[in-house]
């Protein structure tokens, strides 16, 4: 249960791919990637969670940080592919609507 993160950019729009388990062990590494991403003032970011198998509250906090950072810059965040356990957690925390995955 490890995690990996990749940022792919097409036509200037970054897509953050998160795979595996986003949890208390891996969330700090994602937070570092988020800082680098936000520094580019991307405007709009897509987060692809279709390969995300597990998430805990630390992982959720990292994604909330990304959401708040993008919004503070006047940008937009779109989450795609959320499923199974991560989707259940987002719904429980009422973040499915915030993240536009309802």
């Amino acid at each position, binding site marked *: *249960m490890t995690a990996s993160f990749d940022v792919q950019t097409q036509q200037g729009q970054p897509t953050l791919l998160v795979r595996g*388990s986003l*949890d*208390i*062990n891996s969330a700090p590494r994602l937070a570092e990637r988020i800082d680098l991403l936000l520094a580019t003032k991307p405007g709009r970011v897509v987060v692809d969670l279709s390969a995300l*198998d*597990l998430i*805990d*509250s*630390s992982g*959720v*906090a990292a994604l*909330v*940080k990304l*959401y*708040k950072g993008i919004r503070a810059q006047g940008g937009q965040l779109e989450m795609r592919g959320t499923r*199974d*356990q991560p989707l*259940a*957690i987002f719904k*429980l*925390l*009422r*973040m499915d609507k*915030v993240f536009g995955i309802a």
Partner: protein
Amino acid sequence: MSVATLRLVVPGHLRFRTVAVRFIAEACRLVSGSHMFDDRTGGFQVQHPFDTAFVSAFMEIFNNIVLHAYGGTERGVIEVTASVTVGALALEMRDTGTIFDFHAVPLPALDELPEGGMGLHIARTMLDEISYRPGPPNLWRLSKRLVLPGQL
């Protein structure tokens, strides 16, 4: 009536979190009958609602013990006992770390998009029962019944 009692003892450190989560996932699978591991890729997925709920709750309590009871230092162990019965799982987790007031932990302000304080809320919401008794050893009890179709 217990079908099986499973025990795991791991150091109270995040390095051993994956081992513990897999242990609980397997205990869940014995109750729900789900299949979690992709035989082709070796991938690990939690899809059944029962597994989702219990694994999610367990991860949060494990994090809590490591970070708050043991303060992120490996100075104790976490003993996990899983009692598997037909249609239910009951878990006991023991640690010898710092105690806290379980009932004083506030609900997170979900409307404000919190970046912390969500762990116990997840655990409380996902399980049928959760309790904490300060020790030593501190004792967490977590339990959930499998809801079968037609039982709602």
